[in-house]
C-alpha cells in the first residue's frame, strides 16, 4: 500500500517565503481547485517527489511548472523571483511506516534535482526538537550523486514490499521492470493520461510493457511460468551437453579396453533398463560382455595353473613351432602395415590438395560475387560494359575479356557463381569422406602396430627361452600366467569404471525425468487456474463498472479482456473467426474516458480480491473529460467513494462552479482538499 499523507511546498522568493501544505486521508479525496489555481502543479509535485515525473514526460525539474522554477505570481500581475524551492512529501506503507521525501526543484547551492533526502519519520508540521534521521538517495541516474548513495526507487520498492520482476527488453537483456512504468497504471495525468490506457508509461525499450505491468499488479503466474519455461529449456540444454560428454566417455572407455560400446542413446531419454548398455570384448572372434570376458580369463588362468610348468627342454618342440607361426604372422602383418601406411600417406596428401582447392574456390567465389555486385551497380551507373555491350562499338561482348578469336561462350556470371558453389559443395563432401577414411585407416594402423609389437615381444621371449638352460622352467608359461592375472586385474578395474559411468548415466536420466515432468506440469498457454480466475474477474468487474458509468458505444457481450496484453478489446465475429478491435477506436470520446475510469478501478478491485500488488492508490487529474455528463461523474464519484481502505485522489475543477460541485458530490463521502486562491501563496 502507498498512502500519501501530506505535502508541503517551500518556495523562497526575493520578496519572502511562499508555499503551502495539504493533508490527505484514506478513501476518496477530492482536490478541488479552479483552473489556473495550481491543481495540476499539486498533482505533478506528488509524482515529482516519488520520482515518477516521467509519466508527465521528461525528467527532473523540467517537468515542474514555472512557479517552482522562475517566478511566483501573487496576487495577479505581481511577480516574485524564485531563488530556491523544495517539495516535501509524507508517505505511508501497509506496515504504517512513515517516511518524508524532500526533493529540490530549484537550488541555489549545487544540489542536483536527482538527489532526494528520505527522512525516516514525520517532518511536515513536526514540532519535535529533533528531526528524524535521513539518508540522501538518488533518482534515475547516479548523475550528481556519489556511489555510496542508495537508489531511491530501490528504497521505494522495498518500502512498498514489492519485488519487481525481471523482464526481457527488446535488445534481449533481462532487467528489472521500472517502478515508473507501474506508476502509469494508477496515476492518470491530465494532458495525455486520458488518451489511452497507460498512455504515459515510459518505454525503456520494453516490448508489451503494459502487459508486464499488469502481470505484476495482478501477480499473474504467467510471468513466472514463462520464466520457468525458459529455465527448463536452459536446463534441458545443459543435460543434453552432459549426456553427449558421458557418451564420449563411454566410447573412450570402450576403446581403452579394446571393445565396442552398444546400446547408448544419442539424446537424453528416460532409461528404465540399463542391461542393454554394454561393452563387448572380442576373444577368438566371439563377443563377450565385460563380466563374461573376465570369467573366461579366470577360467583360463585356472586351467593354466592346474598344469605343471614344463622346463625349457620339455618345451623346445612346441616353442619352435610357435616361433615359426609367429614369424609368419609378423611377416604378413608387416606387409599389411606397409601397404596401409602408404595408402594413408596418399590419402592425407589428397586431403591436403582438396583443402587447398577448397580455399581457392572460396576466394574465387568471393571475387565472382563481388564482380556480380559491381556489375549490377555499374548498370545503374550507366556503364555499357555492365550491360555486356562494348562501349566503343556497341557490339555484344558476352561478358568476357577473352580475345574475339576464342569462340567460346562463357557462362553468365550468375551461372558461374552457382557453378563454383556446386564445386565447393562437392569438395566439402570429398573432404568429409576423406577425413573419415583417414580416421578409420589410422585406427587400423594403430591396431596393426600394437599387434606387431606384441608378437615381436613374444618372439623375443621364445628366442630367449630357446637359448637358455634346458633345465630351467619355461619363462613363456610363467609370463603367460602373469599376463592373464594382469589382464584380469585390468578388466576388473575396467568393469568398475564402466559401472561408475552407468551410475552417472542413471543420475542424468533421473534429472532428465524430473525436467520432463516439470515441463508437462506447465500449463500450455502459461496461464494458471488462478490467472484465469483473476482475468475473468477483471473482465466481469470492468463490464459492471462500464454499465454503471453509462457506457453505451458497444454491446456488453463483445467486450473482452485480451489475453495478450490484458487490456479491453472488442471481439466481434469476422466470417468464421472472431477479430479483436481496439476499444479506443470503437468507442465515442466520452465513452473511452468511461473505459479508463472502469479499467483503472477494476484493476484495483481485482488486485484487492486476489491480494495482488496494487499500491491501493489512484490519482486522477481532471477525470471529467470530454464533456462527460455531470450525472455520470456523480455516479463515478459515488462508486469510488466505497473504497475506504484505499486512497483515491481526484483532482477536479468542477467547471469552476459551486453548482457543478454540489451536483457531482451529492451524497458522496469524501475528504475535501480545497485549493483556495492559489497553490503557492505567501506564508506569514
Amino acid at each position, binding site marked *: 500500500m502507498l498512502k500519501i499523507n501530506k505535502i508541503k511546498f517551500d518556495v523562497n522568493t526575493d520578496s519572502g517565503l511562499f508555499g503551502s501544505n495539504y493533508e490527505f486521508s484514506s478513501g476518496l479525496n477530492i482536490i478541488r481547485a479552479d483552473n489556473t489555481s495550481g491543481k495540476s502543479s499539486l498533482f505533478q509535485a506528488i509524482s515529482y517527489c516519488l520520482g515518477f515525473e516521467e509519466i508527465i514526460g521528461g525528467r527532473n525539474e523540467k517537468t515542474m511548472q514555472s512557479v517552482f522554477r522562475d517566478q511566483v505570481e501573487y496576487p495577479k500581475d505581481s511577480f516574485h523571483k524564485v531563488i530556491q524551492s523544495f517539495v516535501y512529501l509524507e508517505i505511508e506503507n501497509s506496515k504504517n511506516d512513515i517516511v518524508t521525501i524532500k526533493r529540490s526543484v530549484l537550488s541555489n547551492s549545487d544540489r542536483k534535482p536527482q538527489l532526494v533526502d528520505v527522512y525516516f519519520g514525520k517532518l511536515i508540521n513536526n514540532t519535535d526538537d529533533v528531526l528524524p534521521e535521513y539518508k540522501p538517495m538518488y533518482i534515475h541516474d547516479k548523475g550528481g550523486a556519489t556511489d555510496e548513495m542508495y537508489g531511491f526507487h530501490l528504497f521505494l520498492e522495498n518500502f512498498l514490499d514489492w519485488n519487481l520482476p525481471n523482464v526481457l527488453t527488446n535488445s534481449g537483456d533481462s532487467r528489472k521492470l521500472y517502478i515508473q512504468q507501474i506508476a502509469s497504471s494508477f496515476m492518470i495525468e491530465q494532458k495525455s493520461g486520458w488518451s489511452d490506457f497507460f498512455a504515459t508509461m515510459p518505454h525503456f525499450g520494453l516490448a508489451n510493457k503494459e502487459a508486464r505491468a499488469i502481470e505484476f499488479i495482478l501477480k499473474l503466474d504467467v510471468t513466472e511460468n514463462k520464466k520457468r519455461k525458459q529455465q527448463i529449456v536452459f536446463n534441458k540444454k545443459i543435460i543434453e551437453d552432459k549426456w553427449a560428454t558421458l557418451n564420449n566417455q563411454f566410447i573412450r572407455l570402450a576403446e581403452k579396453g579394446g571393445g565396442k560400446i552398444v546400446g547408448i542413446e544419442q539424446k537424453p531419454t528416460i532409461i528404465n533398463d540399463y542391461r542393454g548398455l554394454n561393452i563387448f570384448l572380442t576373444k577368438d572372434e566371439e563377443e563377450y560382455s565385460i563380466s563374461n570376458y573376465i570369467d573366461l580369463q579366470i577360467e583360463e588362468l585356472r586351467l593354466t595353473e592346474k598344469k605343471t610348468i614344463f622346463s625349457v627342454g620339455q618345451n623346445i618342440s612346441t616353442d619352435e613351432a610357435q616361433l615359426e607361426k609367429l614369424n609368419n604372422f609378423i611377416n604378413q602383418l608387416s606387409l599389411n602395415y606397409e601397404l596401409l601406411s602408404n595408402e594413408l600417406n596418399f590419402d592425407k596428401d589428397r586431403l591436403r590438395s582438396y583443402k587447398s582447392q577448397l580455399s*581457392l574456390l572460396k*576466394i*574465387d567465389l*568471393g*571475387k*565472382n*560475387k*563481388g*564482380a556480380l*555486385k*559491381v*556489375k549490377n*551497380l*555499374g548498370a545503374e*551507373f550507366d*556503364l*555499357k*560494359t*555492365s550491360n555486356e555491350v*562494348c*562501349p*566503343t562499338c556497341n557490339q555484344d*561482348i558476352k*561478358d*568476357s*575479356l*577473352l*580475345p574475339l578469336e576464342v569462340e*567460346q*561462350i*562463357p*557462362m*553468365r*556470371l550468375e*551461372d*558461374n557463381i552457382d*557453378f*563454383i558453389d556446386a564445386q565447393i559443395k562437392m569438395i566439402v563432401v570429398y573432404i568429409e569422406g576423406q577425413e573419415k577414411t583417414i580416421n578409420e585407416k589410422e585406427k587400423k594402423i594403430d591396431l596393426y602396430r600394437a599387434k606387431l609389437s606384441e608378437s615381436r615381444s613374444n618372439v623375443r621371449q621364445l628366442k630367449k627361452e630357446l637359448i637358455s638352460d634346458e633345465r630351467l622352467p619355461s619363462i613363456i608359461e610363467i609370463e603367460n600366467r602373469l599376463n592373464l592375472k594382469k589382464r584380469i586385474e585390468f578388466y576388473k578395474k575396467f568393469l568398475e569404471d564402466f559401472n561408475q559411468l552407468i551410475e552417472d548415466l542413471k543420475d542424468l536420466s533421473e534429472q532428465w525425468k524430473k525436467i520432463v515432468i516439470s515441463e508437462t506440469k506447465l500449463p500450455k498457454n502459461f496461464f494458471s487456474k488462478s490467472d484465469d480466475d483473476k482475468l475473468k474477474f477483471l473482465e466481469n468487474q470492468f463490464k459492471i463498472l462500464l454499465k454503471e458509468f453509462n457506457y453505451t458505444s458497444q454491446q456488453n457481450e463483445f467486450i473482452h479482456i485480451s489475453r495478450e496484453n490484458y487490456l479491453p478489446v472488442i471481439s466481434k465475429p469476422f466470417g468464421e473467426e472472431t477479430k479483436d478491435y481496439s476499444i479506443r477506436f470503437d468507442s465515442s470520446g466520452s465513452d473511452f474516458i468511461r473505459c479508463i475510469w472502469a479499467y483503472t478501478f477494476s484493476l484495483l478491485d481485482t488486485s484487492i480480491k486476489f491480494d495482488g500488488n496494487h499500491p491501493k492508490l489512484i490519482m486522477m487529474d481532471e477525470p471529467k473529460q470530454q464533456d462527460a455528463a455531470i450525472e455520470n461523474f456523480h455516479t463515478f464519484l459515488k462508486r469510488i467513494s466505497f473504497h475506504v481502505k484505499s486512497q483515491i485522489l481526484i483532482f477536479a475543477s468542477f467547471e469552476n462552479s459551486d453548482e457543478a460541485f454540489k451536483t457531482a458530490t451529492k451524497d458522496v463521502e469524501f475528504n475535501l482538499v480545497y485549493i483556495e486562491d492559489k497553490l503557492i501563496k505567501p506564508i506569514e
Partner: protein
Amino acid sequence: MRDFEIKDVKFSKKPISIPVDYRPMYKIAQIVMILSITCIGNKSSLLKLHLLSWALKDDKNKDEVLELIKKNYDTDIAVWGIEPALNRALLFCISENICTLENGKYLLTKKGEDFFKIILKAEVFKEEFEFLNFIGKKKITDNRIESISKKWSLFNVKN
C-alpha cells in the same frame, strides 16, 4: 547388339566457366581500385597496373610483391605477367570514360572516382582491399617500377 547401334552423334557447345579475371566488370573494378588506392594523383603507368593486377591474381603473387617491398626492392623479382585481358579492360575503361590516357599514364576521371565510391559502398572484394590498402600510395611508385624493369632488361635481355 544391333539395338544399341549408335546412328549419329551430336555435339553442342555448352557455355564454359571462365576465371573471374576475364570478366570485364571485375577487371574494370580492379583498375579503379588500383588507381584510387595505390596511385599518387590517381595516375599510374601501364607497368604498375600490370604488376598489381598480377599480384591480385593469387596469394603466391601477393607474397612475392610484399617480399619485394620488405626487402626494399633488393630481390630479383621473377618477371610478372602481362595479360592482354587487362589491356582490353583498360580500353573499355577509356571508352567508358572511367579513365583517360595522359602522357602515357592512366588517370582516373571524376566518373571513375564516383565508381570507386560505389564499389566501396558495395562492401565487396575484401581481400583485394586489404592488399591494396597495405600497399598504399607510397610504397610502389612508377619510378621504382621503371628501375626494376630496367634492371631486369639489363640482366636478361640480350642486345
